[in-house]
């Protein structure tokens, strides 16, 4: 562990506010938090949290930094992002290990998350030459009309524990290519990965004589989070977290007419049709429901199976669950690590009690695994008689609810009945079923897949969901537009002054 920390320049006590290579702001008034290893319960290192004072120092440099950064041609910004990607390649191993150490996801997933950061850097390099606006034919003679995209400013990025590094990259790297600076408030459960990234970004920025581009303020939501969402200097807040917190963020930011990108709760389902390839379905269900110990926004939480194959599918899923190796996530061969906090374990157990009260039958799991550690649980399968209240709620844990349907219309109705709308999938070999699921009378989610599961999105597509998932889009496709402001320009190159709609005014 010590070696990992040293490679990432982490100390026993780290400062939680930074705006550049020589701009770490240490305020002794800040409260210390301890980052614990969820596998062992042992402390990894401590962080001196940001205060109002150090937040102000960071914000000042982020706003100043924007004035320089926005004037650098976008393709040149892309070259600096390329350097960041290279630096991440060099640090991939220790950074991926730190993700595992601090958050508890298995090593392959921790390293995969850093790879996602590298991928998004590669994407952003190309993007920096493709920040296109449209041009339109003007209805007025000798006029030219077009639109262009300008950077927004310093942007607030608030992320959750479950993807402690990739979600930062989705936001900060795209924002950087767009000409924005970012101020990051990571989860208080994963502050060390944030500091490690800040060190990496600082080294790259130092090579270019820059500061204030990538900034971090680690602190409580009630202090730093609230300060950010109410800060007029942050024109955009990108928030990843729960629907309940997202509502609070949206209301606060809207009050000051700021913009938001909201990436909120999911309650993702897979419909398994009677004609599906069950081997493929089971493998996808296992990865979707058990991967990251069920703590992904896109984790599979509901299975809606055609009643003719439901008994067979249940047996196959239970058999697959029995083969899941649970243990230290850093060890090769482990498929499921611990939950992130003791509170998360309590939340899961309480949800299971409610599921049973509502008629649920536990087919597999349902227990804590104290021999492995306080935060280890069994991945759990619960057969539900119907889609009850607990199934409508997202529990951030490896609980999988099984339900049955008679026809595809009922399956889609059940699928869309929950308030969330992030990710979805159907397993079928019937073209009509697949197309119906993808059509406007099909899945109401932002992500809809055929014959692959709900989780494990690529960076090239826009990531996000509808309804209580918040409607935000991050990462690929044209999600970059959320980090810029659109300006429509009309240029009159005649010596006349014709008005639109043919209006005559004082002629």
């Amino acid at each position, binding site marked *: 562990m010590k070696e990992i920390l040293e490679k990432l320049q982490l100390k026993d006590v780290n400062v939680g506010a930074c705006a550049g290579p020589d701009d770490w702001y240490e305020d002794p008034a800040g409260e210390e938090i301890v980052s614990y290893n969820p596998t062992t319960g042992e402390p990894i290192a401590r962080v001196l949290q940001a205060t109002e004072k150090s937040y102000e120092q960071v914000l000042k440099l982020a706003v100043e930094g924007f004035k320089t950064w926005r004037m650098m041609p976008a393709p040149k910004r892309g070259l600096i992002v390329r350097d960041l990607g290279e630096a991440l390649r060099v640090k991939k191993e220790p950074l991926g290990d730190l993700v595992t150490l601090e958050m508890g996801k298995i090593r392959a997933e921790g390293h995969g998350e850093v790879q996602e950061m590298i991928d998004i850097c590669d994407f952003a390099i190309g993007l920096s030459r493709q920040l296109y606006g449209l041009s339109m034919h003007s209805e007025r003679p000798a006029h030219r009309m077009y639109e262009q995209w300008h950077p927004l400013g310093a942007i607030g990025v608030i992320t*959750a*524990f*479950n993807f402690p590094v990739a979600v930062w990259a989705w936001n900060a790297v795209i924002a950087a290519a767009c000409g924005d600076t970012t101020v990051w408030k990571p*989860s*208080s*459960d994963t502050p060390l990965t944030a500091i490690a990234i800040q060190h990496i970004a600082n080294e790259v920025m130092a090579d270019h004589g820059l500061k204030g581009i990538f900034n971090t303020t680690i602190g*409580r*939501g*009630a202090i730093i*989070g*609230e300060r950010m969402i109410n800060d007029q200097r942050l024109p955009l807040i990108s928030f990843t*977290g*729960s*629907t*309940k*917190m997202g509502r*609070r963020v949206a209301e606060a930011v809207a009050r000051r007419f700021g913009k938001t990108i909201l990436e*909120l*709760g999911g309650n993702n389902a897979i419909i398994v049709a009677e004609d599906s390839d069950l081997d493929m379905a089971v493998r996808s269900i296992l990865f979707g429901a058990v991967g990251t110990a069920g*703590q992904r*926004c896109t984790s599979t939480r509901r299975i809606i199976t055609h009643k003719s194959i439901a008994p067979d599918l249940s047996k196959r899923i239970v058999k697959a669950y029995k083969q899941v190796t649970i243990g230290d996530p850093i060890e090769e061969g482990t498929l499921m690590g611990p*939950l*992130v*906090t*003791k*509170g*998360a*374990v*309590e*939340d899961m*157990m*309480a*949800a299971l*009690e*409610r599921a049973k009260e509502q008629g649920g039958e536990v087919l597999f799991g349902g227990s804590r695994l104290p021999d492995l550690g306080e935060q280890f649980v069994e991945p759990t399968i619960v057969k539900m008689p119907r889609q009850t209240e607990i199934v409508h*709620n*997202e529990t*951030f844990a490896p609980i999988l609810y099984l339900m049955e349907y008679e026809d595809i219309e009922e399956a889609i109705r059940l699928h869309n009945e929950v308030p969330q709308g992030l990710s979805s999938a159907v397993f079928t070999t019937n073209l009509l079923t697949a197309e119906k699921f993808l059509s406007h009378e099909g899945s109401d989610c932002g992500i809809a897949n055929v014959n692959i599961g709900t989780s494990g999105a690529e960076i090239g597509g826009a990531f996000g969901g509808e309804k209580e998932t918040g409607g935000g889009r991050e990462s690929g496709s044209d999600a970059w537009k959320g980090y810029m402001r659109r300006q429509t320009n009309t240029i009159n190159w005649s010596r006349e002054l014709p008005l639109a709609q043919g209006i005559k005014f004082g002629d």
Partner: protein
Amino acid sequence: MVPKVSLETPIEDLVQKFPEAVGFLTRNGIRCIRCGEPLWCTIGELLEEEKILDPQKTIDELNEFLE
């Protein structure tokens, strides 16, 4: 007995210091962890949002549970 928590206790503190409180509250239909992250408000604010008629009674029961 000195009460461990009050209406003014931030949820972020509660979850860190008394994780078992999460289960107690969830079993009573009050979820203070969402998506694995604690809410940013105090317990009192959460109970008010959840329209709990007698918030102090819930706090008393929670303190009793934590003893």
